[in-house]
């Protein structure tokens, strides 16, 4: 059986040549490649066999899949869905039950060492993985098996990349991000964090892997540099208000109406690496800050455990207390200052007494 190329599949699905070239140029632009690369992407699509993908779901909310099928370009979702042969994705595939589960074994047998394992969500390790059961077996088993024979792993979203809300303190099920799962085959992992990641970022990452048959350049934490090397803050259109010192103090104040910087109501833009302020959401329509809401840092490790989303300073846990650096430090400084004052008082008394002693 010959495997169809991407292009053949697209044409079969009724995508016009024009839409196809448009998609290639858009993707090249999204990836920060020169227009010349659009041709390279097109050639790859026309000649390369479809990339088989196993898309596994662990503990998650399906927002990554939801985001993925909402790519901006009207036809992109069709293009992308036909680009990769999603052999297994329990959310959107037609098969169900044992029939579905057997697809995993078939794919592993057929494309051994050549398929991409796309992980949405993560496995819980406690109670022998009982908190996530798929087809009667712990998801952990399915994940380990699929990872053992794959070519590379894509960690979709903050769940697979960092753990996300199911890993929030005290993490009773011990939900664990993919790269930290014990006993997982050592395969290259690309992290595409976000809750969910931006659709265009997801499709561009897939397009890159298909075209160049390797991962795009990754940063120290394994994220594609082209989308995660700058903070929301670095390209935020409210930045002039930040530098000026004009902040929203409360959500219904004059500053909020004037579109001031959201730093004081907890914006995590200055500490969050993602492409929201450049690529934006819903087809480039808007993004949270544009809608007047501070960034909650959804693509960062541990964003779910940093305390109030509406407070700039994180809460620190420990010693049975939960407080900001200022609360802890201010208390410590007061205590030290108080002790010094008391010590000074006693010293003065002692000295006075010695003085009187000397006079006698």
């Amino acid at each position: 059986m010959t495997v169809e190329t991407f292009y053949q599949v697209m044409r079969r699905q009724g995508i016009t040549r024009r839409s196809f070239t448009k998609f290639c140029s858009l993707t090249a632009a999204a990836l920060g490649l020169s227009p010349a690369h659009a041709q390279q992407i097109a050639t790859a699509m026309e000649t390369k066999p479809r990339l088989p993908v196993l898309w596994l779901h662990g503990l998650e909310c399906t927002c990554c899949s939801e985001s993925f099928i909402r790519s901006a370009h009207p036809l992109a979702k069709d293009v992308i869905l036909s680009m990769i042969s999603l052999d297994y994705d329990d959310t959107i595939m037609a098969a169900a039950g044992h029939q579905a589960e057997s697809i995993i074994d078939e794919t592993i047998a057929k494309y051994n060492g050549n398929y991409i394992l796309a992980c949405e969500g993560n496995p819980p390790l406690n109670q022998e993985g009982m908190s996530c059961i798929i087809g009667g077996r712990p998801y952990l088993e399915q994940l380990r098996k699929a990872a053992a024979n794959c070519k590379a792993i894509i960690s979709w979203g903050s769940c697979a990349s960092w753990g996300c809300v199911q890993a929030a303190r005290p993490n009773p099920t011990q939900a664990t991000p993919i790269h930290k799962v014990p006993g997982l085959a050592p395969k290259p992992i690309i992290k595409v964090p976000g809750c969910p990641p931006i659709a265009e970022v997801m499709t561009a990452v897939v397009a890159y892997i298909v075209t160049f048959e390797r991962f795009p350049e990754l940063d120290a934490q394994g994220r594609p540099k082209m989308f995660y090397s700058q903070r929301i803050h670095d390209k935020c259109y409210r930045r002039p208000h930040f530098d000026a010192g004009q902040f929203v103090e409360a959500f219904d104040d004059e500053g909020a109406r004037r579109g001031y910087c959201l730093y004081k109501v907890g914006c995590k833009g200055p500490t969050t690496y993602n492409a929201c302020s450049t690529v934006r959401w819903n087809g480039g329509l808007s993004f949270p800050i544009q809608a007047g809401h501070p960034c909650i840092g959804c693509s960062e490790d541990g964003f779910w455990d940093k305390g109030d989303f509406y407070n700039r300073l994180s809460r620190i846990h420990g010693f049975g207390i939960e407080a900001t650096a200022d609360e802890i430090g201010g208390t410590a400084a007061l205590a030290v200052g108080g002790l010094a004052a008391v010590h000074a008082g006693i010293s003065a008394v002692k000295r006075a007494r010695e003085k009187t002693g000397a006079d006698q």
Partner: protein
Amino acid sequence: MAMHAPQQEMQSAVYVYEAPVRIWHWINALAIVVLCVTGYFIGSPPPSVGGEASDHYLFGTIRFAHFVAAYALIIGFLFRIYWAWAGNDHAREIFLPPLARGSFWREILHEIRWYAMIEKAPKRYAGHNPLAIISMHILFVWLAVFMIVTGLALYGEGTGPGSWQHRFFSDWVIPLFGQSQTVHTWHHLGLWVIVCFVIVHIYAAVREDIMSGQSIISSMFSGWRTFRVVKGERAEP
């Protein structure tokens, strides 16, 4: 090693802090005050200013002052390390405390007893007393290193990949802490550790000046440590 005041004279003096150390001390103190104040405001900005954004650069200025003071601290610190090597013995004290020496720890204990007002008289030291040495080593030297490393890692986020700050600091510091916000939190906690150090440091300097029979504060201006005999001092062996 305790420096004992000679018996015959009431006053004696030793040259302890060379000019570069004194100049460094005051520049460093100023830089740290600026860093603490501006750092606090970076965490909790002052009330908003009104009008057009293009009319103001208030928060930008606060951050700029933080960065200028930061570079003063860093360059000063590097110079001070150099001087620990080039300067006199006292210049090395806070960088290389004799941790392996038993008497050092006993003298620290003595110093603690003096502060707890159990000991009647302080021992005398030409340079810092051992308790000062150990607290400055930990709470100043290592804290300064910590603040410089985390500070440059945060700074590198602004200058971006490719800058030396990013390459040498952000690249490993941010993943080490997990994420940028956590680095901010620890950098911020460092502020309060420094504040605690400064409170104790200034209090101790003033107290010793009055109580220990040796010049302290003026030494950091003139370089000379002078001794006078205080009540309760034991006859010297």
